[in-house]
């Protein structure tokens, strides 16, 4: 996928998800550390007061002044426990009842903080410290049931995850909207380029962001250049044709005039030369006029312009009284230069008119691809000659009247557009069928 929009979307999506995951994980850790830290602080404090409540009698027996101990340690399974262990001593809080905590022996000054499963499956956080008193090493463990704080931690985590999730989705949505919005000019540019190709537009006109302003300006400039160049070259060719054809006309008139009446040989060869000249000129000038594939400057409206063309041909061949039936399926606007299309259809229809007895059918099918079929009820062309006509590019036939110059011009034009010309037998009318396909 080579779309900037998609690439930006993917990149932004990944970075957002990564950033949010990191945020989520680190917040989780901090919350746990925070609540643990608080419990530890509290337990240390309790451990101190227990230490203060400890008494050693003369026999070094340890006892605890329960009045100095917080009452929560006296209620069974209250969630707050202590346990004091020494070589010959084992004291536990009344809250532990008959349960025992698995506490390691520690040397004096050592301290350990760890989790433990306590009575009634309470998750406990334990702080155990070793100390030295009157020649004996004791280990005091104070534990607290952390399930309430775990619960609130979980509640917080749920709430937090939910918020983070919603925020992530919102941000992603925002980001998609921003991208869509920022890329709208590009989508418009794409649409306009399509329209340019189909000749619906002559210049691009969009609210253009600065980044592509130059590009669009340049395209517009090139379009103007191409259009004016085509116009200029067509005008120049028109003028050239005019300038050459008038003298040629005069020369031909002179050749046929009275002055050369007796010079039959001279007259014949002059006539042949000028006719040749005219043929070549005609072909080259017509070929040069074709706009060919590319951005279309003016499209061909089949529904409007084919009937006009048919009217002209019926006028030119009125003595033959030919019926020309026209059918169009699909789009009426054809994305081929109007002049080129006129030349194509004009030549094909004129050929048909030359050979037809009374009937011609022209069908244009302009859906995904453009197909033009022209059939006549004339004598047709044999299969062998049809192949010849196509293969030799009509060069040999150009000298003769008939399917000559017209077809060669047509074939040249079709090549310019990457189309295909096919000749066949018309099963409907019995004469020649000419089929033109454009991609």
């Amino acid at each position, binding site marked *: 996928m080579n779309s900037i929009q998609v690439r930006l979307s993917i990149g932004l999506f990944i970075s957002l998800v990564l950033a949010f995951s990191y945020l989520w994980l680190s917040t989780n850790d901090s919350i746990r550390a925070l609540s643990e830290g608080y419990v530890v602080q509290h337990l240390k404090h309790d451990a101190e007061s227990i230490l203060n409540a400890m008494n050693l009698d003369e026999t070094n027996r340890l006892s605890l002044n329960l009045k100095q101990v917080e009452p929560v340690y006296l209620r069974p399974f209250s969630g707050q426990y202590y346990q004091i262990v020494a070589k010959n001593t084992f004291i536990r809080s009344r809250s532990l009842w008959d349960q025992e905590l698995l506490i390691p022996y520690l040397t004096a000054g050592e301290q350990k903080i760890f989790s433990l499963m306590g009575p009634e499956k309470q998750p406990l956080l334990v702080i155990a410290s070793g100390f030295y008193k009157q020649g004996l090493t004791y280990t005091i463990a104070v534990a607290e049931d952390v399930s309430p704080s775990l619960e609130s931690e979980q509640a917080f985590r749920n709430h937090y995850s939910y918020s983070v999730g919603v925020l992530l989705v919102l941000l992603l949505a925002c980001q998609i909207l921003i991208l869509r919005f920022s890329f709208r000019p590009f989508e418009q540019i794409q649409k306009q380029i399509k329209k340019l190709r189909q000749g619906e537009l002559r210049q691009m006109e969009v609210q253009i962001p600065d980044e592509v302003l130059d590009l669009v300006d340049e395209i517009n400039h090139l379009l103007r250049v191409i259009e004016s160049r085509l116009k200029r070259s067509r005008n120049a060719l028109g003028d050239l044709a005019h300038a050459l*054809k008038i003298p040629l*006309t005069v020369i031909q*008139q002179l050749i046929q005039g009275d002055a050369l009446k007796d010079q039959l040989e001279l007259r014949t060869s002059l006539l042949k030369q000028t006719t040749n000249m005219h043929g070549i000129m005609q072909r080259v000038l017509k070929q040069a006029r074709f706009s060919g594939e590319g951005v279309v400057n003016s499209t061909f409206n089949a529904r409007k312009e084919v009937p*006009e*063309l048919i009217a002209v041909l019926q006028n030119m061949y009125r*003595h033959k009284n030919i019926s020309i039936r026209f059918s169009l399926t699909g789009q009426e606007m054809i994305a081929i230069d109007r002049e080129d299309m*006129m030349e194509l259809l004009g030549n094909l229809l004129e050929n048909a008119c030359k050979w037809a007895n009374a009937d011609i059918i022209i069908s244009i099918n302009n859906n995904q691809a453009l197909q033009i079929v022209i059939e006549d009820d004339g004598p047709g062309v044999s299969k062998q000659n049809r192949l010849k006509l196509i293969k030799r590019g009509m060069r040999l036939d150009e000298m003769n009247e008939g399917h000559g110059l017209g077809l060669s011009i047509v074939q040249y034009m079709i090549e310019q557009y990457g189309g295909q010309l096919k000749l066949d037998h018309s099963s409907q009318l019995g004469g020649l069928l000419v089929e033109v396909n454009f991609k």
Partner: protein
Amino acid sequence: MRLLLIEDDTDLVRLLKKDLEKAGFAVDIASDGIEAEFLGFEGIYDCAILDLGLPLRSGLEVLKNWRAKENTLPVLILTARDAWYEKVDGFKAGADDYLAKPFYSEELLLRIQALLHRVNQHSAGLLQVAGFSLDEEMQTVATANHKKIELTGIEFKLLRYLLLHPEKIISKATLTEHIYDADSDKDSNVIEVYIRHLRRKLGNSVIETRRGQGYVFKGNSV
């Protein structure tokens, strides 16, 4: 038949005028668009031969202006511009026929003849009216029993005009207008002389005189 030849190339004009006159047409020349448009409104021409690439005003514009003011002058476009879209534009502007340069004089003459027949509601080919058939190429006329009669230039011009407008009263002035070009000396009394000649060749009853109005071609319609 009087033609308006609109063409700016003087050599071509000279040659064409000669050919057209030889074929029995009176020819006036216009060499630019403005003059052409003006002359086209005179109402004395039977047909105009119009070049498209004219100085001052393009042929297409001239034609459009005529048609916009309901001038039905038959127009044959004679031009070096032979692209199909130009032909379509020409016909759309109101042309009656279109011939591309270079061309052969015979072709042009045939087209003009056909056009004149068409606008005067005659069929193509020989001009056949009430027992007479006019060979416009040979400038002879044949009667119903295939007797071929030779005609002089003026006689041919007169007869062609009468045959194209049979059963219609045609004044001497009209005949003069359509037989002579702008440069000729016009003497309508000469018309009487030539009508007499035609009657002698074709028969007295063929052309009737309507006193104070003109002539009517009756032919051998009895």
